[in-house]
């Protein structure tokens, strides 16, 4: 990697999530006069991004619930943070083929770190940064941040000797830049484990008052319902055809598989139905005619029997679920057909529903 910047200062590129740890890691380095840039990889599986996409009024009124924390951290630190969209590449290279396996659902935590660090390494080379850094803390996360995992991740991401974890550096072998004295190892951190005492102390010292609470569980891939829907999609669609927009739809509503090439998604409330309408883009939708029910987005071309089943689902998720012969509208905008149905039976729902805990 390049070792000199135009300013003559060492330069480091960090994975910035906007959480306290990565923010502190960046601050520890800028305090030493190191030139810092950040990158945030957007995978399409972030729960906060989904909350942002739904745009519930109560969330939009509170910027802290919808803002992109990586950009917020970049703004507060006055370092440029780049957001990079890796959704489709990430799905194919990491989610579908994890070399180190999944966690509790479809979360490939170790492969995910390797992927992001390898990408960060490429970006660092392009930008003349000699160090890639993260906010990782030794022993903080059981799967991806114990000693052996950190070493494996460093090796497989091709960053041996150039990957710095400023918060925990005292517990890890020195990087080349530390050995050469371009980074002062004595001013790096010694945080360890799940207790956040060291981080909170550093936050006080740096005057960092505003940071999101550590949430964990912020990735849809660790959610079993979501994982079931993703597995279903992969069983019925060519992975290459799956785009970022398909991932948006996997996070919303109740999902039903009616045939290999036919699926329906019904919103669970008005906000979800609005998102489904927005995402319809030429696809069929179905809903009870008076609008007092969930909107269903139909992926595929239903035949007559499937139209009746879709209508029965629309009645089930409406205010008329106890009524018979409820009028339902199905089809693409401007080409809707009308038919009448009663609510689908509960046992049939269990057969059709995907990812129902």
């Amino acid at each position, binding site marked *: 990697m390049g070792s000199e910047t135009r300013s003559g200062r060492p330069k480091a590129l960090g994975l910035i999530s906007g959480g306290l740890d990565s923010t502190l890691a960046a601050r520890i380095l800028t305090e030493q006069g190191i030139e810092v840039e950040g990158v945030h990889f*957007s995978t399409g599986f972030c729960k906060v*991004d989904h909350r*942002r*996409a739904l*745009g519930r009024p109560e969330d*939009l009124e509170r*910027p802290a619930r*919808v*803002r*992109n924390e990586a*950009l*917020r951290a*970049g*703004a507060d630190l*006055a*370092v*440029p*943070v*780049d*957001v*990079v*969209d890796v959704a489709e590449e990430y799905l194919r290279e990491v989610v579908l083929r994890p070399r180190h396996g999944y966690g509790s659902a479809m979360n490939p935590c170790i492969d995910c770190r390797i992927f992001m660090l390898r990408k960060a390494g490429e970006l660092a080379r392009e930008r003349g940064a000699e160090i890639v850094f993260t906010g990782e803390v030794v022993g903080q996360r059981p799967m991806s941040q114990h000693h052996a995992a950190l070493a494996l991740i460093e090796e497989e991401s091709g960053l041996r000797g150039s990957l710095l974890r400023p918060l925990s550096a005292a517990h890890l072998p020195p990087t080349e830049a530390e050995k050469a004295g371009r980074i002062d190892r004595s001013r790096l951190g010694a945080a360890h484990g799940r207790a956040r005492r060291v981080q909170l102390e550093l936050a006080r010292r740096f005057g960092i008052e505003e940071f999101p609470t550590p949430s964990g569980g912020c990735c849809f891939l660790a959610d079993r319902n979501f994982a079931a829907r993703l597995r279903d999609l992969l069983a019925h669609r060519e992975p290459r055809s799956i785009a*970022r927009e398909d991932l*948006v739809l996997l996070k919303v509503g109740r999902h039903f598989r009616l045939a290999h090439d036919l699926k329906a998604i019904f919103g669970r409330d008005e906000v979800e139905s609005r998102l489904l309408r927005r995402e319809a883009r030429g696809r069929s939708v179905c809903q009870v005619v008076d609008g007092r029910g969930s909107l269903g987005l139909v992926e595929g071309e239903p035949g007559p029997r499937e139209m009746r089943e879709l209508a029965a689902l629309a009645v089930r998720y409406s205010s008329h679920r106890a009524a018979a012969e409820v009028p339902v509208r199905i089809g693409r905008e401007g080409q809707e057909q009308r038919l009448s149905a009663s609510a689908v039976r509960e046992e049939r729902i269990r057969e059709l529903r995907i990812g129902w805990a």
Partner: protein
Amino acid sequence: MTVARVDTRGLYCPVPVLRTRDRLRGLSPGAILEVVADDPVVLTDMPLFCRSHGHEYLGHDRGPAGELCLRIRKGGGARGE
């Protein structure tokens, strides 16, 4: 001065910010970029993006169909690259 424009309607954040960054790369310092969007979250993300990258966020108004039109002045420093 002609105003450059990027249309991000139909895209969810952070994608509108990524399109904005790409479009700004082709402009000179001081140039104005208008970003059209329909995801309201862009109003939270864009000022943060501008502060992070050294651009000036000039505010927004609504277009005839209710779409958001944000205006940005490209910064001159190295952070904007």
